[in-house]
């Protein structure tokens, strides 16, 4: 089934076409949701709600950009909306509370590459994790993040800075990346060549 057939069938509420679309994009989208969610069950709930929105709003897709990107934006917004329903989310973006959080080394999972990095991201506090996901991975600007999360732009920036520092610390402990100083030195050395 081509993408056009899949789209046309899904818009017509054809179950087979919808299932093809779901099977094609659900693995990656669940990965997106998993980065925002507290656990796998929550991630699947986000995925479910996101795909229901995708199918009900599919007629609004105008072929401007890739379909995956369009679905991804809906999924991210769904994740944010669900997180915002959780009252604890508002507290988690408070800098004062987040600054005292430490990640113990034995919490760091020992699984490989992509999943390692994702699990390390999920170790971050909810507010840090959300801002980092939105800025560094999903590519939203701090202004857009501030609007989505209903926070100040400066809060978004500071949350991201702290999130990145904490994540870097975790990744270094896991030997996934080298320390910042040596990396900067390496980057500088590369730039001189």
């Amino acid at each position, binding site marked *: 089934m081509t993408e056009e057939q899949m789209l046309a069938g899904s818009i017509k509420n054809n179950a087979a076409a919808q299932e093809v679309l779901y099977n094609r994009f659900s693995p990656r989208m669940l990965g997106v949701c998993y*980065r925002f969610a507290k656990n796998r069950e929550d991630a699947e709930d986000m995925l479910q709600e996101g795909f229901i929105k995708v199918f009900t709003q599919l007629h609004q897709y105008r072929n401007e950009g890739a379909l995956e990107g369009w679905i991804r934006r809906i999924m991210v917004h769904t994740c944010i909306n669900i997180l915002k329903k959780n009252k604890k989310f508002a507290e988690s973006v408070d800098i004062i509370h987040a600054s005292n959080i430490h990640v113990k080394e034995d919490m760091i999972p020992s699984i490989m590459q992509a999943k390692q990095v994702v699990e390390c991201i999920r170790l971050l506090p909810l507010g840090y994790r959300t801002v980092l996901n939105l800025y560094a991975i999903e590519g939203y600007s701090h202004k857009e993040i501030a609007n989505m999360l209903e926070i100040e732009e400066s809060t978004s920036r500071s949350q991201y800075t702290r999130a990145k520092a904490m994540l870097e610390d975790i990744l270094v402990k896991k030997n996934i990346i080298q320390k910042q100083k040596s990396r900067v030195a390496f980057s500088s050395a590369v730039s001189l060549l």
Partner: protein
Amino acid sequence: MENNFYNDHFEQFLKETVDDFRMYPSKRVWSSIYNNLHPGRKWPSLATSLLIIVTITLFGVANKTEVNNTVVASNISLDDNDNNYSTQQNKSILAAVASINKPQQSNHYLTQTSPVTTPDVSDDDDTKSIQQSKPKTNRLISQAVSRININDNTAEPFEETGENNDISFSSTTEGKLAPQFISYNLFGNEMSNPAATIRKPLVKKRTVTAFTDKEWIEDFAFHNKPINKWRGRLSYQLYATPSVGYRSLVKNTDQEINRAFPAGPSNSATSETYALQHSPSWNLEAGGTFLLSVSKAIRLKAGMQLNYTRYRIGAQEMDHPVFTTLLLNNPAELVSRSSSISNIPVGAEATNLNSSTYQISMPLGADVKIAGNNNIQWFAGATIQPSYVFAGNPYLISSDMKNYVYDMSMMRRFNLNTSIETFISLTLKNGAVLNAGPQLRYQLLSTYDKRYSYDEKLYNLGIKLGITRNF
């Protein structure tokens, strides 16, 4: 500048690493999405699924005794440096061990609904050729195998490491596999199992073609293992229903009230009828039910409850008992009783009687969700309640309506009640659900024995308060 350069690299590293991350959702996600998009198609798909399941089961039973060179199942404890898996998987992962030498269809990706033959192993070839066997009903293995992207050029031996790597499979003859289970170590250490005839491992050490395949199988099998489908659907509810109850009293015979009866001081023939001074009173119902959600909107319920029914009788208590009779449906049958309670003013002390019953009932019924979201829902429900009256205070009006007779023998022991209700459910943060709403309960059969000429049916209207929790 170096900082910016590093920052860009860090973010680029994050994006590139994480972008390719995938997870495979469990089946319930698509089921929920499908049911949401196609709400009218549940029953046909349910019937079709049931038919398919029965067909596959019968097929599996019919083919049960056939011996195939098939790896039926394996308990693989993978190298678990990963703490996330070690405690949770606990040898429950079903994996398809396949090292393929024969050319396979490259990048073969099947949907979950298409059956796939399970590859099996024979040991007649040092190169470990794989032969296709008959389709097995092991759904998880089939699906796990079907989703592996099989690349012809990357077939490498699968390597098991660690002490706990046991592959359990079976054989009836040396070198052949059969669908019985023995357990023995992969490296040839035979376990004590009378069914075991294998003397050497059929599958030698192999390395996984790609580590991602292994991880994918692990992830897929773990997150798609059969779950207890009833968990989450079953809940229990405790409730109490204070109510106001009364009765309907109907004469079910055409006989005259003042038919000839043994004469007595209080049984003088008269054409008068006397008004009964009855009034409603408090009733109570309390019990528990099990609730089974069969769909998003319907749940079945069954339980047990105690009922206390009551209504008040205004009467006068006489100093001396009198003889009276009870009017029965059978004219040939006469019931004579003594009574010290008068329905008519006789100058005696006024008293209030409680005509009551104590019942144990088994409500069976269903609730239907009318509207609502995850937090607040509106339900309507109905039950039918076979009941047993184990105690009570039945006061039967005499044939001339002048006296009340207390007679337990005229009380019907087994009865049938029905109830209808509507209620609001409120989900609390701890997961418990509070329910509250009106309920009307009505007794379908008379309180009294069918011999008695009056039919009394009790009913009560109250507020049902309950709390529901999932198992």
